[in-house]
């Protein structure tokens, strides 16, 4: 059942992504100001949007684990956070490349970039502390606690970086008015969908590994106790 779901998601993702890539690279015209590089937006922004979606899912599943003590929720949390952290990294790296091309610098401490980097560091802490805890219930509980604390920090980070007169490097329309040419809407939406489908498949694979790992651990403990 799970395997079928993974294959189905992967096939769906391919069906969405391949024609979409063709549209993005072959059909859409170059942007007036930026030339060809603007196409990075079809990876850059979907990665960020999906990362936020998966972090939110991990918050919900972490709370569910603390309430229900069911390990399924824990395995979903860790899978979502791993994939989400990877997506934030994709977002940072593509953004950095884009910034180098357009602004001439790899990194600027502007508000979007800073908040994404903080997000990355917060969840990196989660991924580092998890393997250090041996006992499964303890690991799941403490990880859930860390995940909730990390998520609560996101709005505070957003508030903090707005404090001093932070000059933003990001173009105004992206942050405030949000207008994009009509012909970009469909490929952009499909880009978000494709990343979502691929990452959901990845999460299912990772969750399966997590469950198998826990079973192996418990068998090993049983063996030791004999």
């Amino acid at each position, binding site marked *: 059942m799970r395997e079928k779901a993974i294959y189905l998601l992967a096939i769906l993702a391919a069906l969405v992504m391949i024609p979409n890539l063709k549209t993005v690279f072959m059909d859409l015209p170059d942007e007036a100001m930026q030339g060809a590089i603007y196409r990075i937006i079809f990876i850059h922004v979907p990665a960020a949007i999906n990362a936020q979606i998966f972090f939110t899912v991990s918050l919900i599943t972490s709370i569910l684990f603390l309430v229900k003590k069911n390990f399924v929720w824990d395995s979903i949390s860790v899978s979502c956070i791993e994939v989400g952290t990877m997506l934030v990294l994709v977002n940072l790296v593509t953004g950095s490349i884009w910034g180098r091309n357009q602004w001439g610098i790899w990194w600027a401490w502007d508000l979007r970039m800073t908040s994404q980097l*903080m997000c990355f560091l917060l969840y990196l802490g989660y991924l580092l502390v998890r393997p*250090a805890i041996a006992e499964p219930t303890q690991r799941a509980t403490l990880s859930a*606690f860390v995940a*909730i*604390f990390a998520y609560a*920090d996101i709005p505070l980070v957003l*508030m*903090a*970086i707005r*404090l001093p007169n932070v000059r933003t490097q990001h173009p105004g329309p992206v942050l405030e008015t949000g207008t994009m040419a009509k012909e970009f809407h469909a490929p952009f939406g499909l880009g978000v969908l494709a990343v979502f489908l691929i990452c959901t498949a990845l999460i299912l694979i990772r969750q399966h590994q997590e469950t198998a790992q826990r079973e192996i651990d418990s068998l090993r403990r049983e063996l030791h106790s004999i």
Partner: protein
Amino acid sequence: MKRGLITALAIAKKDLQTELRTKESINASASFALVILVLFSFAFDLGREELYAIAGGLLWLVFSFAGALIVNRSFARELPNDCLDVLIASPAPAWSIFLGKSVAAFFLLFIVELISLPVFGLFYNIHWTQNFPGLLLVMALATWGITVVGTAFSAVTVNIRLRELMLPVLLYPILIPLLIGAMGTTTALLQGEPMSGEAIASLRLLIGFDVIYTSLALYMIEFILIV
């Protein structure tokens, strides 16, 4: 509720008393803070204006390093002789154990800060006494933020491998918004600017951080201590 608060007070008193008798973490933390302060003077060669511009940043880096050393001991102090198990098994609710430990850590870190501040002023020739009440307020708010999150994570890491390494990895990213706020306000206050506009906004952020994490930690600490 009232009994819980009394228990919290008793635990804070116990922690402070143990610490003031042995002085193990406060000595280490204060001398560490001094060493870092001295090291900074070799790291930068700055004029007066520039020094004032980064003073808040330097100060809060020192305070957060010193804070990590103090909160690290909060729960680890109870490990010998299985004191932690006894505390958890006692009728005291988990939140009052946590609150007591946070209060104790708060006072210890505050003492370290009050020792480092004049030394900082002396080494770097900075007039820290202007706007002192405002500075105390910022220090109190940010120190509470550091100790409440730090004590919560100290409860998370107390039983795991590499405790001393894991605590800073978890703690500092969470503290970033708090430190951004504290650094900005402290710099402004040290430069002699009055509490206004930007400083008030930072103060609001500090209060928000404290309220969110204090309530979150008090509510969730039960799950952490009893696993």
